[in-house]
């Protein structure tokens, strides 16, 4: 098996109030079959055994669905390959001898906790503001009582696959959360079950988004380009329509 030697420039930061800096690590013996997070775990294993401090980063499911992982890799959220989370990014996309620059999400609303780990609880706050349909357990009608146009249901599904990783915010020069919010608003707006609260939902979620300090939409589409789940920009258009209707 081919071995790769890499130079890793990784952002190290003790906590939110400390100053961070880049630390360079030379890493030998990387296999092209590793995923990016396995490569970092391999680095950490070596650091721990040497008595150095490992790099703090988040990862969990390793199949691109939990949304834990996420870091800038050579300037791109989740790295240079389209449609992949960091955990599914294979090292075969990198070259032997390459220098890889790794940074945490940079956004005021996502403060750094340590190294590459950031606080994304602002997303939870937005969800809590209105990202739900208020039907209590026990109150639901029989599932087939309300037919849903397949096309609408499919579009709702396409929006609902958001994993809440924050790459859209990280990619945006305004650190806007519009793609994230639009995905949730769209999912519910497209389903008849979501219509009764559509107005309150979009108003409350947008208000919370602003309160959490996310910027305005930059209209550059960087969010769509970097979304590992390839959530489409037209959801933002729908968000704007829903918002105007709700005013």
């Amino acid at each position, binding site marked *: 098996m081919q071995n790769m030697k890499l130079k890793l420039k990784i952002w190290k930061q003790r906590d939110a109030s400390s100053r961070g800096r880049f630390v360079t690590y030379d890493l030998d013996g990387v296999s092209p079959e590793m995923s990016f997070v396995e490569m970092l775990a391999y680095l950490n294993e070596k650091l721990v055994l040497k008595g150095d401090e490992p790099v703090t980063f988040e990862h*969990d499911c390793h199949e691109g669905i939990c949304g834990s992982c996420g870091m800038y890799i050579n300037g791109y959220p989740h790295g240079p390959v389209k449609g992949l989370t960091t955990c599914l990014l294979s090292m075969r996309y990198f070259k032997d001898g390459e220098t890889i620059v790794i940074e945490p999400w940079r956004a005021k609303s996502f403060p750094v906790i340590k190294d590459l780990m950031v606080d994304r609880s602002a997303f939870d706050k937005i969800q809590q503001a209105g990202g739900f349909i208020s039907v209590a357990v026990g109150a639901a009608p029989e599932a087939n009582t309300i037919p849903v146009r397949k096309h609408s249901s499919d579009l709702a599904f396409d929006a609902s*696959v958001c994993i809440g990783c924050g790459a859209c915010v990280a990619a945006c020069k305004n650190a806007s959360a519009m793609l994230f919010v639009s995905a949730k608003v769209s999912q*519910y707006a497209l389903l008849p079950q979501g219509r009764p609260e559509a107005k309150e939902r979009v108003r409350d979620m947008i208000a919370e988004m602003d309160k959490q300090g996310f910027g305005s939409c930059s209209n550059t589409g960087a969010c769509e380009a970097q979304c590992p789940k390839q959530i489409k920009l037209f959801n933002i258009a729908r968000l704007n329509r829903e918002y105007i209707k709700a005013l």
Partner: protein
Amino acid sequence: MVTLNSKIPEGPLEEKWTKYKANARRVNPANKKKLDIIVVGTGISGAPAASALGELGYNVKVFCYQDTPRRAHSVAAQGGINAAKNYKNDGDSVYQLFYDIIKGGDFRAREANVYRIAEVSNQIIDHFTAIGVPFAREYGGTLTTRSFGGVQVSRTFYSRGQTGQQVLLGAYSSLSRQVKEGTVTMYPRRDMLDLVVVDGKARGIIARNLVTGAIERHSAHAVVLATGGYGTIYYLSTLAVNSNASAAWKAYKKGALFANPSFVQIHPSSVPQMNEFQSKLTLMSESLRNDGRVWVPKNKGDKRPANEIPEEDRDYYLERRYPAFGNLVPRDVASRAAKERCDAGYGVGPTGLAVNLDFRDAIKKQGKKAIEAKYGNLFEMYKDITGIDSYEEPMRIYPAGHYTMGGLWVDYELMTTIPGLFAIGEANFSDHGANRLGASSLMQGAGDGYFILPYTITNFLAPEIRTPRIKTDLPEFDEAEKNAVENINRLMSVGGTETASSFHKRLGKIMWDHCGMSRNEQGLLEARRMIRELREEFWKELKVPGKTDEVNQELEKAIRMADFLELGELMVLDALNRKESCGAHFREESQTPDGEAQRIDEQYAYVAAWEYNGENEPVLNREPLNFEFVELKQRSYK
């Protein structure tokens, strides 16, 4: 020994749950506010339980190790969720679903519990649909279903290949609503370190704040564990890498019984291991077996690329051995059949530890588009990991540790042997017997959380309405916190030369080799010796860097690892004790002439509920399984 009372209501099977609900004690709405409930875990059992209890008006505190409840590993469930709707008019019913689960579990589950989960299955689909889960639909606007292994009806509701994500996010949205309402308080980034028992009742937990390292005390009138399974004990598994057994293990050491710990489902289709650095095996949904055909070359060592092997040189061994169910046999059967072929030298791929899952015929018949619509994201994920396009050549798959049927022993009310401590979802042992059928885990988790626990917990809580808020300065909290801190300090001070992960890899290998898909007495005895040695070595050679009062992911791993090293031995002990084969537990000494699992009902038709006994060997408590409504049969899928 404890006296096990499963509290199964009297009466005919189909009336038990209705009767139970009619007779259960109630808590009046004004009193609910005064009662605190802790829920640990926010997966497809914990999030529903927390939101349902919040909606009822209880004061709920929810804990998870992730940064947000939406990341619990239920999010990764792929194929679907079962319900007895009979939308396909193919003869499904509550009884049929019940029977399939009992049979699929190889007659090692409790009839009453299983019937109840089948009964509530339809409500789960109604509820998820109402809260905006986009299940797949027909053009007429109604919901559609697909088939899953081990059954002959189509009852699995799904959202492409990411049903778990969709239902979990649905549950998370309801949980978020309750946070807004103020009935639920979220405590993310917390690891539960211990359970606090006061006067014999579960009254709180000790948790570590994973950001600050602070050791926290949290009290409640009742504690619900929804902490999932322990499949990560194999190191390589389909679980999230941080999934762990610690909460359940701590409950066990505080007196809750651990039932059938050796019942572990090895899922037949995961992406095979590719290199030694791999930390996870990615699942490829069972739903793929609806359209994919499993095969290996007929000739040993046939190294031709799969597409160049002609039809007559292929062995579709599942279709050959099990003509009635074909590629849709239950998971335990499919896994063992794959192992059998690979052990016999017919495996494919660079390691020989893989079989083909081929979509060629399905694509020819239905077109690439139809296959893409059903499994698009799975094909993509497979390509991301392996670089192979499965529209063009077969996937390679191999079994991997996946789901634990074993778990904390609970009665019909989902309460453990510690009053006030409940276990729901995968964390308990109750519904799947010795093998779980596909798409039943989301069903059981959500059913426990939404529709069962909210009813059963009132029997415990009704007499508690006069109990004031539990104080956290009680000596029991002091003691539990002291033990937790001492454990951490002990781990930090070992000062050895090996990381927690390296111990995890070694334990995983022992468990996989000796307590995995196939077990025998000699191997299990060997495993027990090896685990004991490894545990000793762990406490001499472990190295944990950093400090305790900051983010310290190595410390988190070490804490979980110490528990795995104890749990592993209990799994082995349980596997040793059960000298029969049943479901996923395959004892080589007990098989039929054609290599299928051979149960020994006269001796082993019981739940093995293990009781912690300090440094001594755990005590075995037996809950006999009485089958009043189904006839015990040798399971056959032929």
